[in-house]
Every structure is written in C-alpha cells, then in structure tokens.
C-alpha cells in the first residue's frame, strides 16, 4: 500500500537520517499531515487513543479516565509513593511539591550524564540514592502503579517538554529515528501504525495516533497500569522484534520524541484500554 498524499514524501524526507531538520520542524510537519487527514481531531480527542477515531468507543465505561478498577491501582501506587524508606524518607520527598504538577515536564535531560531522564529513571534514582531496592520498569504492579499515582497528581497539566538545546535535539532525533525504523518479522516501524496508518482499523480497533500518546499514559489494561515504555515493548513483541530492555536509553529516547511532539497536550492518565488479544 502506498501513501496517497504528497505530504508523505515530505514526512519521509524528514525521517531520512541525513535530512533531520530540527525537532520543531519535524513536529510541525507531522502535525500538518495529521491535520490534513483528520482535521476534526484536536489534542483533547487524540489523547483518547483509538477512541479518537471511534466515537462509539468513547462512551464505553472501560475507556473512561480514570478507568474502572483504577482505584485499586492508584491505592497501590500511593502506598509505594508514601512508604517510608529505612532512613525515614519517602519517594514523595524526592520530588518538588511531593510530586504534584511535575509529570508534564518529563522526560527531562540530565546535562551531566547527557541522558534522558524519564519518570521511571527519576523514581529509581531516588530509590538508589536512599539505598532502596529499585523498581522494575517493566512491572505494572510496582512501577506502573506508582507512575499511575504520580501522574494522577498532575491532572490536566499541559506537556512542557520542548527540545531547546543541542543535546535535546540530539535525543529527539535519536528517538525519531528509532520510531521510523522498520524492524522485526513484520517489518513495521512504530510510525507505520501510529503516523502512516493512524485511524485505520487494525482488526476491530482504530490505530491510535502518535500524537497524544505521551499525554494518555499510563493506561489501565486488564486492571494493570501500562506505561508508555511498557506499551512500546509490547508493540515491539507484536512486531516480531526483540524489545529494547525496560528502562533502556532507546525507550527513553522514543518517549522523549513522543512527548515532545505532544507538547501542549493536557495529561489524561489512567484511562482504560481494551485488553490485547
């Protein structure tokens, strides 16, 4: 299947390694294409994921935010967030305002290590600095739950991630390249489904757009909190590719790219999603 619109050519040029033109230019080109194919969808719809393209889905209780069953997940996350370390400190004390209204500013960049710092990284850095056991970034019951709670402390906050220096541009570009690279048995890139085919039905469900995903996570899927990185790893497995390790720089860079293109989107964490077949 070929892309029908001439705009695709421009997007693919932007996706080509030699043609990187800057984060804002990439974001703008991708947004223009989305606007051309789905002019009626804005940030408040796109954050709904598949339901952005199917109004019947939006009314189902399992797709609401917070989703049914989220109370238990949030309680588990709050317990981890407020649990006292052996030195009497807590995760909440590692973050400004106890973690309130901070989630929309992540991922951040650490100038010293030159790495992307996701919320997962920040949580584990806090635990490490206090001599506590780290949480597994792939575990919905611990890392998923605590991030569900943490992001619930920033309702409606707008994403402020915007690459503003050379290091940020470099990490954005690395994430973009990974997002556009075909891989696995299926020979798909993330961009195949979430930019090229966004809104088309894969099976019964519309493919969610890349825009808005960074504002919507975590999602409650089968009673479990699924972070953006967990979802990316699940997608890679379904593509027949070996997933990047949980907590890896690659996943952090993809998250940085996705978050930067959704700058200005209001957080809507803990919405429901259908269980994957």
């Amino acid at each position, binding site marked *: 299947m070929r892309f029908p619109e001439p705009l695709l050519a421009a997007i693919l040029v932007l996706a080509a390694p030699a043609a990187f033109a800057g984060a804002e230019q990439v974001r703008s080109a991708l947004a223009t294409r989305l606007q051309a194919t789905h002019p009626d969808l804005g940030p408040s719809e796109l954050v709904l994921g598949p339901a952005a393209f199917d109004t019947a889905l939006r009314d189902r209780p399992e797709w609401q935010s917070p989703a049914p069953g989220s109370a238990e997940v949030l309680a588990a996350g709050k317990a981890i967030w407020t649990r006292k370390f052996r030195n009497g400190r807590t995760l909440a004390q590692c973050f400004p305002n106890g973690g309130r209204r901070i989630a929309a500013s992540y991922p951040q960049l650490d100038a010293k290590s030159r790495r992307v710092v996701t919320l997962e990284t920040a949580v584990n850095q806090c635990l490490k600095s206090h001599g506590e056991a780290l949480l597994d970034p792939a575990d919905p019951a611990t890392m998923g739950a605590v991030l569900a709670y943490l992001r619930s402390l920033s309702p409606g906050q707008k994403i402020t991630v915007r690459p503003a220096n050379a290091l940020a541009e470099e990490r954005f570009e690395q994430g973009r390249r990974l997002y556009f690279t075909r891989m696995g048995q299926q020979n798909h890139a993330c961009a195949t489904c979430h930019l090229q085919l966004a809104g088309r039905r894969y*099976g019964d469900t519309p493919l969610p757009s890349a825009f808005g995903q960074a504002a919507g996570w975590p999602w409650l899927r089968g009673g479990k909190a699924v972070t953006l990185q967990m979802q990316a790893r699940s997608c890679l497995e379904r593509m027949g590719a070996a997933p990047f390790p949980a907590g890896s720089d690659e996943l952090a860079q993809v998250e940085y790219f996705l978050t930067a293109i959704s700058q200005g989107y209001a957080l809507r964490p803990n919405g429901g999603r259908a269980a994957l077949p």
Partner: protein
Amino acid sequence: MRARLLLGIAVAAAAVPCAAQVEAGRALFADPRKGNCLACHQVPEGAGPASRADVGPRLDGARLKGWDAPRLRALLDDPQRVDPDTVKPPYGKHRILDPMEIDRIVEYLRALP
C-alpha cells in the same frame, strides 16, 4: 497417447486447488499467529470471518483479477520488491509462513468470489 492423456489430467488436477487446500488457506489467512490477514483486510461475506479492518484493501475476486499465482506468491514472499513503501509483512522472506503455507493462502485468495 494414453500416457499423455494421463499426464494432461494430472497437470490439470494439480493446477486446480482442492477444497481442502482452499480451506487450509482460509485458516492460515485468519490465524493471528500465521497470516493474521484479517487484521488488515476484509473478505466477502461467507468467504471468511467478518472484519472491520481497513489497513489494507478489501480482497475479493474483482480486486484480485489478473493476479495469477506466481504474482501473488511473490507479493506474499517479499512485498517490498513489488512496492518499497508497502506495510505488508514479508511473509516468506521473514519466515512468518513457509512456502507451502503461502501456496495455501494464494489458493484461498484465488478462490475468493
């Protein structure tokens, strides 16, 4: 003369897939762990499970007219040789399906109404 006649019958029989082969192709077409084709395509009512998928085109006899078996086989084996921008998985090249399974799906596709 008799031998030629028998050979002709054998060749003709080999060229026409039997119902069991078409049915095997239909099963592979729908199986999420094999072709998983219904994730992207719809087929005519009665020819397979109903699907609302529209990632790829609806497949039916009219659409596939002119697609002979070698052409379909080549498309399923490595679709990027036909269209570099395609999103269709390379079923043969990446060993998602073996050659016999591809043949069964080709037979199913060619039998679509």
